[in-house]
C-alpha cells in the first residue's frame, strides 16, 4: 500500500505513531534517567528542571518511566492484535470458505466467547492465569480474535460466489490459489481498519488490567500500573496520575485517528481512483 494520502486523520495518526515507535526504540537515549532508579531523597516531587514530569513515591523519574512505558504498551498492542488477526484470519477463512459443519462449530465458538462482556472475560482469564505480561496478552487475545474471525467470515461470504471467483475455479484454480490470489486481497481492507483501531483498544485494555494489578508487574515501567501506584498519592502528588494517563490517551487516540482515516480512504464510496 502506497502512502500518498491527503487524509488528515491518517497523517496525524501516522505521525504520532511514528514518534511513539521512535521513543520506544531509542528509550535509553531519550529518557533523562534510569526508569527504575529510586532517588529516595526526591520522593513525590512536582515537575522541575531535573525531573520534567516530577517523581513518584519512590523518587523515580516519571518522564523516564513514561518513555520506557511506551515499549510495553506498543509491544502488547501489536502482539495481541497480530495474534488475534492470525487466529481470526485462519478460523474466519475456514468458516466462510468451507462452510458446513466447520462453519457451524467455529461460529458457535465465537458466539460463546462473545457472550461474556470483553472486560469481564479478560479480567477473569488474567486473574485465573495469574499476573504477568504473557498471561495478560493471552487473556486479551482470547477476547480479541472473535471480531476478526467474524469480519473475515462475513467478507468471504460476500465475495466467494462472485463471478471472478467462479471463473477462476472454472479455469482450474485450486482452493489455496483462489484464497490467496483472489479472496484475501479483496477482504483485507476492512480487516486492516479494525486491526489498527484494535491496537489502540488492546493498549487501553492492557493498561486497565495492569492498573488492577493483573498485568505487568512493578518495577517494570507500565502506564497502567504507574496510575495504580499514583492512586494512593492523589491528594499529595496529583502529577503522578496526570502523565501516564495522558500517554495512554495520546497513544490510543493516534491509532483511532489512523483507523478512522484508513476507513475513509479504503471505503469505495470515498475513493476516487482504483488503487493498484
Amino acid at each position, binding site marked *: 500500500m502506497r502512502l500518498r494520502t491527503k487524509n488528515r486523520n491518517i497523517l496525524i495518526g501516522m505521525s504520532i505513531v511514528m514518534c511513539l515507535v521512535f521513543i520506544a526504540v531509542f528509550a535509553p537515549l531519550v529518557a533523562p534517567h534510569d526508569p527504575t532508579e529510586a532517588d529516595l531523597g526526591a520522593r513525590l516531587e512536582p515537575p522541575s528542571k531535573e525531573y520534567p514530569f516530577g517523581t513518584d513515591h519512590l523518587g523515580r523519574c516519571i518522564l523516564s518511566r513514561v518513555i520506557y512505558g511506551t515499549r510495553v504498551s506498543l509491544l502488547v498492542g501489536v502482539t495481541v492484535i497480530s495474534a488475534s488477526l492470525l487466529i481470526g484470519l485462519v478460523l474466519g477463512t475456514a468458516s466462510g470458505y468451507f462452510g458446513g459443519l466447520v462453519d457451524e462449530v467455529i461460529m*458457535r*465458538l465465537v*458466539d*460463546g*466467547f*462473545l*457472550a*461474556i*462482556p*470483553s*472486560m*469481564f*472475560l479478560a*479480567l*477473569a*482469564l488474567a*486473574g*485465573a*492465569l*495469574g499476573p504477568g505480561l504473557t498471561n495478560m496478552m493471552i487473556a486479551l487475545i482470547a477476547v480479541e480474535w472473535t471480531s476478526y474471525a467474524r469480519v473475515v467470515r462475513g467478507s468471504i461470504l460476500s465475495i466467494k460466489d462472485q463471478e471472478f471467483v467462479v471463473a477462476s475455479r472454472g479455469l482450474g484454480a485450486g482452493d489455496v490459489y483462489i484464497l490467496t490470489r483472489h479472496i484475501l486481497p479483496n477482504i483485507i481492507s476492512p480487516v486492516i481498519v479494525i486491526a489498527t483501531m484494535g491496537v*489502540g483498544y488492546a493498549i*487501553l485494555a492492557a*493498561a*486497565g488490567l495492569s*492498573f*488492577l*494489578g*493483573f498485568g505487568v508487574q512493578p518495577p517494570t515501567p507500565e502506564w*497502567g500500573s504507574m*496510575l495504580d501506584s499514583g*492512586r494512593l498519592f*492523589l*491528594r499529595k502528588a*496529583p502529577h503522578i*496520575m496526570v502523565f*501516564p*494517563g495522558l500517554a*495512554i*490517551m495520546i497513544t*490510543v*487516540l493516534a491509532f*483511532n*485517528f489512523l483507523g*478512522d482515516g484508513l476507513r475513509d480512504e479504503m471505503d469505495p464510496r470515498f475513493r476516487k481512483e482504483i488503487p493498484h
Partner: protein
Amino acid sequence: MLEYIARRTLLIIPALLFVSIISFSMVYLAPGDPAEILLTSPEGTPSPAAVEAFRVRMGLDQPIYVQYLRWLNNILHGDFGYSYMSERPVFDAIFKSFKATLKLSIVSMFISVIVSIPLGILAAIKHNSATDDLCRLGALVGVSIPNFWQAFLLILLFSIYLDWLPVAGYGDGGDLRHMILPAITLGTSSAAVTTRLMRSSMLEALSQDYIITARAKGLSEKVVVGKHALKNALIPVVTMLGLNLGFLLNGAVVTEWIFGWPGIGGLVVDSIYQRDYTMIQGSILFIAVIFVTLNLIVDISYTYLDPRIRYEAKD
C-alpha cells in the same frame, strides 16, 4: 421472521453452555490446588487434614466433570452455591450488586443520551464544518480516554479541589451525589460511540430522496430535520443503546472498583483478588446471561423496526 427469531433464540443455548464451561474451569486454569491456595493464610500453609476437610465440604474431591455437572444442575435450579469467603449465598450477592450496577448504568445512559443525540444531529446538519470536526474529534477523544484515568481527573477536580462531591462510596443507598462522578465516567465512552452513530445515521437519512421531496414541498428546515430525517435516523441509534449496556458493563469493572460502588464489576474484581471461585463463576455466568439476552432483544427489535431487514432476514 419467526424462523429468524426462533433460530437466534435457540443459538443462545450452546453459547451459554460454553460460557458455563469457561467460567467453571477458571478454577482449574490457576496453577496450584484451589483448596490449598484458599486456605493458605499469612500464618503459613494449612495442614493436609484441613485441606482435605475443605475439599470434601466444597465437593472439590469429586472428579471435575462430576463437579461441573453438579454445579450446572444446581444453577439451573437457581442455586449458585455459597461464597468461599463469606460463606453467604452467591446469588444474593450477585443480585444485590447487579441492582447497583443497573442503577448506575441507567443514569450513565441518560447522561450519554442527552449529550450524544444533540451533538450527533448538530454534527450532521453542519456537515464538514468546524462544528462537525469538533464533534468528531470529541468523539474520538471520548473513546480513547482510559476511564480509570478520567475517574481520577474527575475526583481530583470535583472532590479534592472544589470539594463539591464525595470521593467514593455508595452513600445513602446510592444517592445522586455519589452517583454523578462514576456515571459521567461511564457515560463518556458510550456518549462518544452514540455521537458517531447518530451523526452517520443522520447524514444517511438527510441524503435520501424523501428529504429532497420534503424540502421541495417548502417545509421548513426544522420540520425536515426534526421530523422527517430524525425519525428514520433514530432507528439504528435506539437499538444501539441496548448494545451500549455492554460498553457500560465493561467500563463498570474499573469504574465501580475505583469509586467503591457496590456493583457487579467491583464484585468480580474483588472476588478475583480473594480467589472466591464460586463467586467468580456465578457472576461471570450471570453477566453472560444478561448480556446475551440483551443482544437478542436488540437484534429482534432491530429487525422489527427496520422493514428492510424484516423481509430479507432468512439466515
